[in-house]
C-alpha cells in the first residue's frame, strides 16, 4: 500500500506550554478513510493544522505524497483539501464565487463545469448565487466542503464534518465521503461519534492528550471498544441480583430500582445479550416498566481506555 501521509514523532507545544501533540507516529495509505477519534482538546485539530500549514510543529517530520512538508510544501499542499471545524468563510460572498476562488487560490484554471458538478453533488447548485450568510448552518458547512473540493484534492481533511448537523445531512455527508473514496481520494476525518467511525472508516486512531493511544482496523477496534449500555427500570426494587441474572454483566443502581447492563462488543453482541437478559427477567418473574438501551458514548470508552493505559 502506498503511503499518502507519514507523520513521524510529530509534536506541538503551544506557546503557553501546553503539549497538544506528543510524538505522534502515523501512516495513512492511499484510498483509505481514516477516522481520528478523541475527546475535546485531544489534539485532533492541532494535528490537522500541522499538516495543512496552520500550526507550526515543534518537533517531528511530516511527509505527504512523498514530499517533506517543511520544505516541499507547495507541491504537497496543492493536493490537500481542508474542511475546518469552525464555520469560517466570507459570509457576504455568493456561493459560486467562494468556491471558484478556492480553486483559483490553489492554482487551478477556472472550470465552470467542474464547479457546477461539485455544487450539484452537495445539493448547492440551486443556491449558487445566494450569499453564504443567507444559508442555513448545514448548507454553510456544505459550502466549506465544496471549497475544499474545488481544487480536486487527493487527500482531504474533514474536521468534524458532522458536528451540529442533522441526521439527514449526516447521511448525505457519509454518502458523499463514500463517493469521494470511490474516486480514490484519501480521507482523514475527526469525530466524537464512534458511530460515525463505525459507519465510514477503514481504520481508526484514538487520540487523547496529544498521544495517539492506538491505531487499528475499524472492526478490531469496535470489537475491542464498543459497548452497549441498557438501563432497565424495575417495578419493584431488588435488594440483590437474582441468581437468574448471573452470567450477565449487570449490576443494580438507584437503590435497586434500576438494573444496569454494560457489555457487548460494538458489533451487535450487546443487543443480543440485552434481549436475552430481558427474556431472563420475564421468565424469572421480575417486572419492569422501562428499558433504555444505547451504545456507549465515546467518552465512556475513553475513561475505560485511559484507565487501561494507566494500569
Amino acid at each position, binding site marked *: 500500500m502506498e503511503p499518502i501521509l507519514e507523520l513521524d514523532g510529530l509534536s506541538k507545544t*503551544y506557546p503557553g506550554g501546553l503539549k497538544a501533540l506528543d510524538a505522534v507516529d502515523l501512516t495513512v495509505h492511499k484510498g483509505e478513510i481514516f477516522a481520528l477519534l478523541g475527546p475535546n482538546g485531544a489534539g485532533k485539530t492541532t494535528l490537522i*493544522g500541522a499538516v*495543512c*500549514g*496552520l*500550526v*507550526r510543529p515543534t518537533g517531528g517530520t511530516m511527509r505527504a505524497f512523498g514530499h517533506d512538508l517543511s520544505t516541499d*510544501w*507547495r*507541491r504537497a*499542499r*496543492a493536493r*490537500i483539501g*481542508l474542511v*475546518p471545524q*469552525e464555520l*469560517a*468563510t*466570507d459570509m*457576504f460572498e455568493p456561493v459560486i*464565487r467562494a468556491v471558484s*476562488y*478556492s*480553486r*483559483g*487560490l*490553489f*492554482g*487551478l*484554471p477556472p472550470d465552470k463545469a467542474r464547479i457546477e458538478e461539485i455544487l450539484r453533488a452537495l445539493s448547492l447548485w440551486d443556491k449558487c448565487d445566494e450569499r453564504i450568510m443567507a444559508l442555513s448552518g448545514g448548507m454553510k458547512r456544505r459550502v466549506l466542503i465544496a*471549497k475544499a473540493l474545488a481544487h480536486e484534492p487527493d487527500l482531504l481533511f474533514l474536521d468534524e464534518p458532522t458536528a451540529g448537523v442533522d441526521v439527514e445531512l449526516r447521511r448525505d455527508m457519509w454518502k458523499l465521503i463514500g463517493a469521494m473514496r470511490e474516486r480514490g481520494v484519501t480521507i482523514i476525518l475527526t469525530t466524537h461519534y464512534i458511530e460515525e467511525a463505525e459507519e465510514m472508516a477503514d481504520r481508526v486512531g484514538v487520540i487523547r492528550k496529544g498521544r495517539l493511544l492506538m491505531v487499528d482496523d475499524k472492526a478490531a477496534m469496535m470489537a475491542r471498544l464498543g459497548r452497549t449500555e441498557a438501563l432497565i427500570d424495575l417495578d419493584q426494587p431488588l435488594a440483590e441480583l437474582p441468581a437468574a441474572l448471573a452470567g450477565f454483566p449487570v449490576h443494580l443502581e438507584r437503590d435497586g430500582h434500576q438494573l444496569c447492563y454494560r457489555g457487548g462488543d460494538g458489533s451487535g453482541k450487546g443487543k443480543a445479550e440485552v434481549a436475552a437478559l430481558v427474556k431472563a427477567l420475564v421468565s424469572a418473574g421480575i417486572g419492569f416498566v422501562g428499558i433504555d438501551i444505547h451504545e456507549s458514548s465515546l467518552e465512556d470508552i475513553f475513561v475505560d481506555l485511559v484507565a487501561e493505559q494507566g494500569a
Partner: protein
Amino acid sequence: MSFNWRSTWSIYQRELLRFLRTAFQSILSPVLTTSLYFIVFGAAIGGRMPDLGGVDYAAFIIPGLLMLTLLGETTSNSSFGIYMPRFTGTIYELLSAPVGVAETLVGFVGAAATKSLILAAIILATATLFVDYSIAHPVWAVIYIMLVAAAFSLFGFILGVWADNFEKLGIIPMLILTPLTFLGGTFYSIEMLPSPWDKIALANPIVYLVNGLRWTFYGSSDVSFGVSLGITLGFLTVCTIIIAVIFRTGWRLRN
C-alpha cells in the same frame, strides 16, 4: 522558487470584489471629506492666502489632500484586508494553500494599491469641481502615487498582522499617521513655519511624501523630489523585509 500567478490573481480579484461590494462607502466618504477640505481651506480660507511658490492656495493643497486620503485609506483598507480573515478564521484557507509570501503580497497589496489609485483618480476629479489645476509631471505623479500606495499597503498589512484586536488596528493610524499627515505640509509650505519648527518639520517623513507629490504636480516643492522618492522606496523596502520575516516565522499568522 515558483510563483503561482493563478493564486495571486485569485487573491487580487477577490479583494477588489470585496472593495466594490462596499464601493459606495469606500468612495463616498473620502470624496465627501476631500470636498469639505476644499470648501473650508480652498474656498473660505484660501481666498485670504497668498500664492505659494506661484501656485494658487486652493491648488497648492491638492497634492497634500490627496496624500492625506491616500495614506489613511490605503493603510486601513490593507490592514482590514488581512486582519478580518485572521479575526473570522477565514485565513485558514490562505495558509493551507500552496501560496507563499510573494503571491499573498502581490495579491493583497496589489489590490489595496489598485483601490488607492481608483480613489486618487476620484479625488482628483472631485478637485476639478473646486479649482483649476494642471499636473506638470503626470507620469511621475502616477508612478509616485503607485509607489506610495504600495508602500502603505505593505504598512497596513503589517498593522493588520500585528493587531490582535480592533483597538490596536486603529491606534497607529489615529495616533501616528493622522497627526504626522496633518503636520506634513498639506496646508502650508514648511518655509512658512517659524524657526526652529521648519527644521523640526523635516524629521516628519510625511513631509517628504507630500512634497514629493507636490513636485510632480507643480514642479516645485520644499524638498527635492529625489529625496522624496528615496524615502518612499526605503519605506517600501523596510516594509517588504518585515513582511518576509513575518511569513518566514509565521508570527501571528500560524499558531
